[in-house]
């Protein structure tokens, strides 16, 4: 179908473009963020040095959500159109999203202990992030253990979609739950107290750096998946040719 042929060509062009252009800006952004976070931005009054985790924690969460939403959208396209390129986009999105989700779950408790006094609490945000991590971990396991046929990929797509649809349900359930037992700890994130404009700028730099990083990693992963598919196709044709 012309539409999907275009899609394939389109993604190839974007892939080449991104992989050519993105490394330098990303490296610059990340280096700048390192300087900004560790050398430039003033230390926050209440929490001290630990507050700096925030500058990596929040952009990681954003990158993770972007990854999972991309995966859900690509999965819908895959179920609807059936073209392999969408499946690659989805899978790459989940894998990179999981990377950032794991970062969120590691940096979060490290920050929580000094600020709230406990490593973990069951408020809506944390519970949602944890459940998402579980759901997409299940996605990765499903891909790993499935036979490499259409059905396996389609089920994975279904999981990716339902996982994202589940998000509001989890948030609602946790709010209903915690409403009855209000969280003893105040979930004051530091964004409620970004007093110094330098903090806002630092956050913006880190957001940019992570957005670029996500795009780079996602494109890389996508290109590897596509190359693997091409290699398998060649091997298959080779076997066919030898057999006949």
């Amino acid at each position: 179908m012309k539409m999907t042929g275009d899609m394939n060509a389109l993604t190839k062009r974007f892939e080449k473009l991104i992989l050519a252009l993105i490394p330098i800006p990303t490296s610059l952004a990340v280096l700048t963020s390192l300087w900004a976070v560790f050398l430039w931005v003033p230390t926050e009054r209440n929490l001290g040095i630990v507050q700096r985790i925030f500058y990596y924690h929040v952009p990681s969460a954003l990158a993770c959500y972007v990854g999972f939403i991309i995966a859900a959208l690509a999965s819908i396209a895959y179920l609807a159109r059936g073209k392999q390129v969408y499946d690659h986009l989805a899978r790459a999105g989940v894998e990179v999203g999981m990377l950032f989700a794991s970062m969120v779950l590691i940096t979060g408790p490290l920050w929580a202990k000094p600020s709230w006094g406990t490593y973990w609490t069951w408020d809506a945000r944390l519970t949602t992030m944890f459940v998402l991590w579980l759901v997409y971990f299940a996605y990765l396991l499903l891909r790993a253990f499935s036979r490499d046929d259409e059905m396996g990929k389609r089920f994975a797509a279904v999981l990716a979609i339902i996982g994202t649809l589940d998000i509001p349900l989890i948030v609602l359930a946790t709010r209903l739950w915690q409403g009855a037992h209000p969280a003893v700890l105040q979930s004051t994130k530091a964004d409620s107290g970004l007093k110094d404009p330098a903090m806002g700028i630092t956050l913006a730099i880190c957001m940019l750096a992570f957005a670029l990083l996500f795009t780079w990693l996602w494109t890389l992963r996508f290109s590897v998946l596509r190359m693997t598919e091409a290699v398998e196709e060649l091997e298959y044709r080779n076997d066919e040719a030898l057999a006949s």
Partner: protein
Amino acid sequence: MFALIRKDLLLETRSKETIASLFLVGLLILFIFILSLNVEQSRVLEVAPGVLWAAIVLASLLGLGRTFLIERENGCLAALLLAPIDRSSIFLAKFLVNLLLMLTFEALLLPAFALFFALDVLPALPKLCTVLLAGSIGLAAAGTLFALAALNTRSRELMLPVLVLPLEVPLLLACVHATEAVLRGASLASVGRWAVYLVGFDVLFVISAWLMFEYLDLDG
């Protein structure tokens, strides 16, 4: 679709394997929890609902895979897919059979639950049954959908809990708290919040599962 349902039910009522195993597993799980938890009777309602739902979920995860497994083992799956019916009807049939199995299992488990925890469930029975029904619908929908997914993998029995449980987390949360509220004799308003949530969850899940089943390329 009704033929499918009738066939599965006929299979089950003749052999009664699934129900018997589900019931036994449920009993064992309740028993293990009672042994490992140390709760005085005055505070039993803090843990009992959670234990009940843990038993239901764990047992049903074992049972849900079976309806598809039987098909596959007998080579019926291919025949089913060739039949000129909606794929979604296959899902509905399996879902309803699974639901019926779960409800029967819960009906058997409930007296044991009341006995083990020394709870008087009779006054709350209608509301409790409603909560059980609502929870079972959600569990059966997700479980049926992903039972087929799990079957397609190399580690079948292990995959189903991995796939279904994270998605079911909000449902479980709602069920446990609704059950607790009902057993405490709470007002309609406080139970109502959870009830509305459960209904919403069930509607979303059943419809999503039913829709998506159509898009699965089951010929593969």
